[in-house]
């Protein structure tokens, strides 16, 4: 076992891990942050997406020891300081961007990375960006709508919910 230290959602954390311990295992089993989901475990589905040093990555395809000293952000770090839903989370709720909810943590984290790079994405940009996030319920339509709405809110525009 090797000691690994990183910052997760703004908090310094550390733990003992094996070389083969994946980041997602460390988050879920080591830290109890079970909001990050393991869907496929084969780098396909994107349910495990988190941010490492500000960029979205699949937490099932990066080792915990590879994140030594990194800034990690998970879905648990997306709410506002008062515990209310963050802008992207609120948009998913408002626009029915989830059904079973399994893929949602990854969708929200992917969306946050997109919106940090592109404040004014087109619907096509959003759909292309979600190539690595699979949803089996929604048909993606309302997920795209949620992200477009979140982008508008973050730009300071008023969005009417349907």
């Amino acid at each position, binding site marked *: 076992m*090797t000691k690994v230290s990183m910052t997760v959602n703004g908090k310094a954390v550390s733990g003992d891990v*094996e*070389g*083969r311990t*994946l980041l997602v295992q460390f988050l879920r089993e080591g830290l109890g942050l079970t909001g990050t989901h393991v869907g496929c*475990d*084969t*780098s*396909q589905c*994107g349910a495990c*997406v988190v941010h490492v040093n500000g*960029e*979205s*990555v*699949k937490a099932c*395809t*990066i*080792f915990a*020891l*590879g994140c*030594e000293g990194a800034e990690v952000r998970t879905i648990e770090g997306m709410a506002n300081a008062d515990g209310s839903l963050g802008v992207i989370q609120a948009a998913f709720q408002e626009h029915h961007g989830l059904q079973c909810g399994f893929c949602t943590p990854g969708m929200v984290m*992917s969306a946050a*990375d*997109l919106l940090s790079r592109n404040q004014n994405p087109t619907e096509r940009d959003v759909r292309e*960006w979600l*190539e*690595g*996030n699979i949803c089996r319920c929604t048909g993606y339509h309302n997920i795209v709508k949620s992200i477009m709405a979140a982008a508008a809110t973050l730009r300071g525009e008023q969005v009417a919910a349907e």
Partner: protein
Amino acid sequence: MYAFDYARPASLAEAIEAMKDEDAKALAGGQTLIPTLKQRLASPTTLVDLNGIAEIKGICLKDGMVAIGAGTRHAEVADSADVQRLIPALAHLAAHIGDPQVRNRGTLGGSLANNDPSACYPAAVLGLGATVHTSAGRAIAADDYFQGMFETALGEGELITSVDFPVPEKAAYMKFVQPASRFALTGVFVAKFLGAVRVAVTGASESGVFRWPEAEKALSANFSAGALDGVALGADGMIGDLHGTPEYRAHLAGVMARRAVTAAG
């Protein structure tokens, strides 16, 4: 996964030292290696994580060429203003590998060291006639580097450090995406240089990426999609699997080559 020791060298010299263990394996972006380890198809004693080595990262211009460090991620190549300006086809290729999360981790060197027969980068490296630099101080021409499916000219423990890409007059890469894996079902990189055209095909052959001399000859004489009329690849040696027959891939190479020539303009 089988258990292994994890080494995180901070310099190339340390990485070279760690790779002297014959059962060590280098970890670049890990987007292929980690799934391979999960399937227990590889069992290194030590995994040498190259992600902490600053000297093999970054993009610069060198002698009229675009030099890209082996540890540079696909997203960085895609977003590079220099690559977009000088070799837009390469930026476009990098912007369409896998998905955004794969592009945030995967590296040029990792893709080339693995040499997956359906990967995109080998087509650009061979199509542009790039030069692969290694930790052994070697400069390997693309024509000598790719030696078959998952086979390369790299020696035991030898690491790619950077790749020099010549700047073409024009170039384009077109791929037909296998929608589940997002690899190229077949992809073609076409590059026009002063007096010569290079055409590299990925995803099609059981021997990995290859040049297509008949197409190069036709396009050198007349750089237009119509010049490829009557130029066809045989199905011999092409990959056949549930996604496509050898005949389908051979045909697709012709279609992608025409689209690439048209896109290159």
